[in-house]
């Protein structure tokens, strides 16, 4: 088949389509978003009627994927690394229930936090759930591994975790495709109690999982992705994980490294190959993107055997992503003098787009808060988090999806007034609604401002579950009708918006202000596509 230029994310998506995927489930999150977007725009996915709608959050996505697997069909759930925290409950338990149709969970990590609040390493979740993990080093591997991952998942009847990092997710290269495989037929689990984790059943299933986890590392669908290449220079052996392999090879353009290298791209890690390497070298350098998981494993608790070089002894930075220059330095490649960034260069942080509705919402919030000598509001994760920067400096929290609502409740309990949360529409339906129910039940003295731009903006404008439903949701959760206020964040409405916010800040009970105006980016894209449709007509 012909080669195609694909992002790492897209290679996984195309691999899944070609491997007979029947359902794709996801919530947008950088750097994972393009997996679902690719499947949504793929003609082949449409022809094959692959389910491909966004879910409310990562937990609902993974659970729906598990349901698709229940029917014997292949399913994939994709999310960013912190999304796997949200989906951790179904993820950990799905390894105990096991699967029916193949199930792959993709978690895209973001070391160096380009667009995230931490740089947690999803490989930990693989060990935590006792499932195999693939960590491709290239777009082609990402594509190919999807086939092995589905096969492995079905053979051992457990979910498989796919771990990628930002650079692979968002880097494009040519990928050679295989002939597409048919989708799996509808076939319910032979054991009707497979998914019933009553303690008596769960104990048995957990014992079975433990023995599967020990045996699967010998399966060739995993083991073939871990390659040991010996070298004549045996002082230092190098273990690379995932994309770190590319950074190593980059430093040896003529003929590759002359020392032993173990390229790891599948876990649980192969003890025999690691022994092959450590047995013939004086010291081992570990190159891994993310946390020093392999390095800590090699050191063990006593840390008294082999000389190990890596992130823990300072040879490599303890945090942040790797790159070819950092890796080059660690293997002793001398760098030439470089141009420096001149002092005249100023930092250019991201900012609200001109005319953004969030900006008008925050200007009203700032003014409405003035009489209270308040030091700011709780907020959440989205474009609106930019209100933490000047000239706004108005938000005091960005912790996890939905936390603004619940932190406001706790702070109100602690005596803060007014206790205000500003949350986006998509974040609200992701994880804010349950917090609002808490507020209603407790009759907390909080004001929740939903900055509704009718899209999931920061990740590029995906459909928001909240659009057109916010008032009904709030009313249904029990917020009093007269304390659900809808405003339009435009400069001409500023005075009125400030007045409405103040009224609700003064109300001793739960109030919601829905500040609603479409994202200017999605609005302009919509107008463009509407005008081109008119032209065609």
């Amino acid at each position, binding site marked *: 088949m012909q080669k195609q230029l694909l992002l790492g994310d897209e290679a996984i998506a195309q691999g899944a389509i070609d491997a007979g995927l029947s359902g794709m489930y996801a919530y947008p999150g950088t750097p994972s978003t393009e997996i679902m977007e690719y499947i949504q725009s793929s003609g082949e996915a449409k022809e094959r009627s692959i389910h491909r709608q966004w879910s409310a959050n990562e937990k609902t996505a993974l659970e729906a994927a598990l349901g698709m697997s229940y029917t014997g069909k292949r399913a994939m759930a994709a999310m960013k690394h912190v999304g796997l925290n949200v989906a951790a409950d179904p993820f950990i338990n799905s390894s105990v229930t096991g699967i029916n149709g193949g199930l792959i969970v993709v978690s895209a990590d973001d070391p160096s936090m380009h667009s995230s609040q931490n740089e947690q390493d999803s490989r930990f979740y693989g060990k935590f759930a006792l499932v195999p993990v693939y960590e491709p080093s290239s777009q082609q591997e990402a594509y190919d591994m999807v086939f092995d991952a589905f096969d492995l998942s079905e053979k051992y009847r457990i979910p498989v975790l796919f771990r990628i990092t930002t650079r692979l997710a968002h880097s494009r290269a040519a990928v050679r495709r295989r002939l597409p495989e048919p989708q799996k037929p509808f076939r319910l689990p032979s054991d009707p109690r497979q998914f019933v984790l009553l303690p008596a059943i769960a104990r048995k299933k957990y014992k079975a999982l433990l023995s599967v986890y020990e045996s699967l590392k010998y399966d060739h669908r995993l083991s073939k992705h871990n390659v040991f290449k010996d070298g004549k220079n045996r002082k230092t052996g190098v273990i690379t994980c995932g994309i770190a392999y590319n950074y190593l090879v980059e430093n040896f353009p003529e003929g590759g490294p002359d020392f032993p290298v173990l390229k790891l791209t599948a876990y649980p890690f192969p003890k025999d190959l690691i022994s092959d390497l450590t047995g013939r070298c004086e010291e081992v350098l570990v190159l891994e993107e993310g946390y020093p998981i392999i390095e800590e494993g090699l050191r063990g608790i006593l840390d008294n055997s082999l000389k190990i070089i890596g992130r823990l002894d300072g040879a490599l930075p303890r945090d942040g992503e790797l790159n070819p220059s950092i890796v080059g330095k660690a293997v002793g490649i001398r760098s030439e003098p*470089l141009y420096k960034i001149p002092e005249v260069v100023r930092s250019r*942080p991201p900012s609200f787009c001109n005319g953004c509705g969030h900006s008008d919402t925050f200007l009203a919030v700032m003014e409405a808060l003035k009489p209270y000598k308040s030091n700011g509001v709780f907020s959440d994760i989205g474009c609106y988090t930019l209100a933490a920067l000047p000239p706004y400096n108005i938000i005091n929290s960005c912790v996890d999806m939905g936390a603004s609502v619940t932190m406001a409740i706790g702070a109100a309990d602690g005596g803060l007034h007014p206790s205000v949360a500003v949350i986006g529409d998509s974040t609200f339906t992701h994880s804010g609604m349950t917090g609002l129910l808490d507020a209603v039940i407790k009759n907390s003295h909080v004001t929740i401002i939903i900055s509704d731009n009718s899209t999931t903006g920061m990740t590029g404008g995906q459909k928001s579950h909240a659009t057109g439903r916010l008032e009904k949701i709030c009313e249904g959760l029990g917020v009093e009708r007269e304390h659900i206020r809808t405003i339009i964040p435009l400069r001409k409405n500023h005075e009125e918006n400030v007045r409405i916010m103040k009224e609700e800040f003064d109300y001793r009970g739960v109030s919601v202000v829905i500040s609603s105006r479409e994202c200017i980016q999605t609005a302009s894209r919509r107008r463009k596509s509407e005008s081109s449709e008119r032209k065609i007509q």
Partner: protein
Amino acid sequence: MNRSMRNDIILSGVGGQGILSIATIISLAAVENNLYLKQSEVHGMSQRGGDVQSHLRLSSKPVSSDLIPYGKADLIISVEPMESLRYLPWLSKAGWLVTNSTPFININDYPPVEEILKEIRKIRNHKIIDADEIAKTAGSSRSGNMVILGAASHHIDIPFKSLETAVEKFFAKKGTDITDVNIKALRAGREA
């Protein structure tokens, strides 16, 4: 293309200025010439009016790293003057810096443009052009990125004809008027 080649290119600008379009067009031309390539780009929060960059690596041999090592870029193509300086540690001492002179000012402490240009002129191989002005003359103020690509094309080891074909492919969906104006901008940039 049988001969051996390698171009490591950094593209820089501000979110929304069209550097990913430049990257895509060079990539299309590279594929037509049977070159290997890797192109990494920035998505997500950093796109909101912040600085953006893309690493584009073309080679007659397989490319390993998605990122260019420091000091190894053959070319920086920038659609904004201050942004052209942000990635200097990547530029090889023998490399070229090709940049637009028109600033994109969305921060309060943007330095005087002359100070920026002074720093650019310190780079051994540099070319500064007013891409916005040239684009306007060519017929579309929005084609500044094609002007810059044209100006940088002398330092990309791909036949210019292939770049033109790639521009045509890239804009095909938008109709012949938009395609023509972008081809015109590309050519004007090459001659600038």
